[in-house]
């Protein structure tokens, strides 16, 4: 149930929670959010619930001291949070993966951001316990982000007593809308994003995952070079629609309960450089690193050497944050190198037009290759895969050249839809017209086709395991 694309979540938890949330008087609504979130987390990972609760309590206790603006205290609590994250990552990696609490990477980053914002005065007063806890634990974000800032949490007028009734007086339309109609519109809008995200995740990502699995089943040493590239792009799309879809679902649920829409994916493949790509891919993580690592280290204000060093620190932490095996560090280091080359060579020395072309090639070719590194944690297998991508170092074994066309004939429509959706204008067009009746019909069909697909996968061990 800890997954948004789970029918139990969609048809049981979410409606029950939403009704409870709106039935609760504003004064106690934050508690409903907190309790609902703890239930959500507990159902997913009861054994690790105490870790989340413990981290919340410790961070709340320290939050009070942040307003004293003592640097030592900030360092101390950030060190505690970072150590907790590192320890569980280590346990999860070395001992047993079940020892890593779900979402720890995300709620810890929220906690660090929260403490730093209090220290900097970005958050004016120390929030109450219920707000702090609800912000850290809120179920739309606790598993995989987005890493929303507390300032966005505060924008939720449904949780603030003093703002109750204000919306009744504000006349943003010509005719006054009752709070009930506004609530329905809010739910509808959030659900629209949820349906789009669900479709991306279930219909595109989960099905393209089968192509990537097929590449593994054949064995990397035996795939044709064409299939190796197809696999790289299929995995690139799978990852994109999995995470973008998830982020849209998370943002949609957030909108349903009054939070602002949090943009986590801003059409990254429309970027013209890799540095731009990572401002638009998992944007809340990128801005977290910018605000709480890169800028505190001096950013780009302390000369070329320090800038490169700071970028190095950011990318090595990014690599380790994603996973502790060597391929993630290699992944981070390659991105660091390309970003440095872009910054000091491509954009600094080359004509603007040529820089744009090279930057675009980086996004469309180097990024998919880095995802292959991201995907394959075994180093020898990774080398094998790259030998098939670039077949200059000998032939593969038992290669069937027909493997490319076979997979294209099975997956072409998913690849085509994925490719079209990677064009920023397509989504933007829908977003602008999402309240149009045709859009509603489209969403209705999309949602139920997704549910159909999930129905035949959930609880059915034979669905994805057909041999």
């Amino acid at each position, binding site marked *: 149930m800890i997954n948004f694309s789970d*029918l139990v979540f969609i*048809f049981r938890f979410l409606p029950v929670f939403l009704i409870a949330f709106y039935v609760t008087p504003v004064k106690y609504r934050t508690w409903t959010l907190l309790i609902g979130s703890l239930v959500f987390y507990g159902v997913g990972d009861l054994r690790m619930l105490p870790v989340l609760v413990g981290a919340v309590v410790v961070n709340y206790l320290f939050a009070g001291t942040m307003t004293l603006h003592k640097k030592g205290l900030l360092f101390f609590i950030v060190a505690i949070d970072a150590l907790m994250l590192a320890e569980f990552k280590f346990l999860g990696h070395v001992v047993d993966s079940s020892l890593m609490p779900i979402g720890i990477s995300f709620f810890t980053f929220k906690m660090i951001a929260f403490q730093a914002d209090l220290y900097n005065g970005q958050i004016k007063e120390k929030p109450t316990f219920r707000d702090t806890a609800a912000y850290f634990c809120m179920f739309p974000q606790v598993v995989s982000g987005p890493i929303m800032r507390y300032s966005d949490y505060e924008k939720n007028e449904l949780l603030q007593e003093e703002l109750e009734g204000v919306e009744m007086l504000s006349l943003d339309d010509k005719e006054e809308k009752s709070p009930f109609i506004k609530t329905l519109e809010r739910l509808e809008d959030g659900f629209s994003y949820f349906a789009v995200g669900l479709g991306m995740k279930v219909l595109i990502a989960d099905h393209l995952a089968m192509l990537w699995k097929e590449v593994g*089943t054949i064995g990397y040493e035996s795939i044709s070079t064409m299939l190796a590239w197809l696999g790289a792009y299929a995995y690139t799309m799978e990852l994109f629609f999995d995470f973008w879809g998830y982020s849209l679902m998370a943002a949609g649920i957030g909108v349903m309960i009054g939070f602002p829409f949090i943009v986590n994916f801003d059409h990254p493949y429309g970027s013209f450089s890799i540095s731009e790509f990572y401002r638009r891919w998992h944007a809340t993580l990128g801005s977290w690193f910018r605000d709480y690592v890169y800028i505190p280290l001096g950013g780009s204000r302390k000369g070329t050497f320090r800038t490169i060093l700071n970028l190095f620190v950011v990318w090595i932490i990014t690599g380790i944050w994603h996973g502790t095996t060597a391929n993630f560090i290699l992944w981070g280091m390659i991105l660091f190198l390309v970003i440095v080359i872009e910054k000091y060579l491509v954009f600094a020395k080359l004509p603007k037009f040529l820089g744009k072309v090279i930057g675009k090639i980086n996004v469309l070719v180097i990024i998919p290759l880095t995802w292959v590194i991201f995907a394959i944690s075994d180093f020898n297998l990774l080398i094998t895969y790259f030998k098939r991508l670039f077949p200059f170092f000998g032939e593969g*074994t038992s290669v069937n050249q027909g493997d490319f066309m076979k997979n294209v004939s099975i997956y072409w429509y998913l690849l085509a839809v994925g490719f079209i959706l990677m064009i920023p204008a397509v989504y933007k067009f829908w977003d602008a017209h999402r309240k149009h009746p045709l859009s509603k019909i489209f969403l209705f069909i999309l949602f139920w086709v997704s549910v*159909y697909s999930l129905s*035949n996968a959930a609880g059915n*061990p034979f669905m994805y395991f057909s*041999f």
Partner: protein
Amino acid sequence: MKWLRSCPLLVGTAVTTIILSVLAHSLDTTVYADAREGFDPGTAPYFSLVFKGARDGLYPWSQVPPVDMQEIGAVAEASVDSSFDSTTNEELSVSGNDISGNDISGNDISGNDVSGNDADRTYEFTEVDPDYFCDALFIGDSRTVGLSEYCQELDERATFYAKVSLTLYKSLTEPFIKTDEGKISVEQALSEKQYAKIYIMLGLNEIGGGTPESYAEDYMAVIDRIRELQPDAIIYIQGIMHVTENKSENDKHFNNANINSRNEALSQLADNKTIFYIDMNEAVDDENGNLLADLSFDGVHLKAASYDRWYQFLLQHAIVK
């Protein structure tokens, strides 16, 4: 109705959910009786029955065979594959009549044969050269598909009627063989062309349903039907290939204990005269009887480069009459 205009998508979804739930509840002993088998309401809403049914071609207005109506009480005990029982029974009765016919024709063939009284002769496995497979047919699921794709020498010679996720129950009747005139079933194909050797490896996809004994019985019905269409063919029942240790230990259905008990039952079907049982697992197993982990990525399928082991095994375990 202002509220309806403000959230048509939500209202539509809610109404659809209610309609589907009502359908699922009211038809769960008839149309969706099969879908309800093994369905855990804790893992998905009850209305998913409607979608599960739709995947198998069952809709709320579908006519259900009266058998199910009579046996509502017994439905709970039926196996996962109960939907196939009716077809299998038909095959059983048809082939039941034909078993005697086969016996007669078997005698006839041997009578006409040059070698004379071969009826009681049994054969031993010998090594053959690749051209042995020129008049061979392979029937199977994705594993056999892999064999055709990654064993060129065999693929150039033999015929393959294999399909991903093929089960025994659909092996003869599902039209999946592409011809110039459209898709035909194995049954149709076998009535048009004769093969000298027929290799079958099926059984993994359907391992979650029935018992080894019931499965062997159904398997024999399929073999009888093939025998009827191909009176002279040597039929090879291939034991189901194992899965890796890791897969075996973590899967309720797809584990080697289940595979071994099915293989044991299948091996009993051989008469060593015209029907032979071969088990290629010895070519791919580790010392504990699990598929060698290095040979497979997903624990179930051989990697492309590993199919040669299977092929070499077939070359060394052939029957020459």
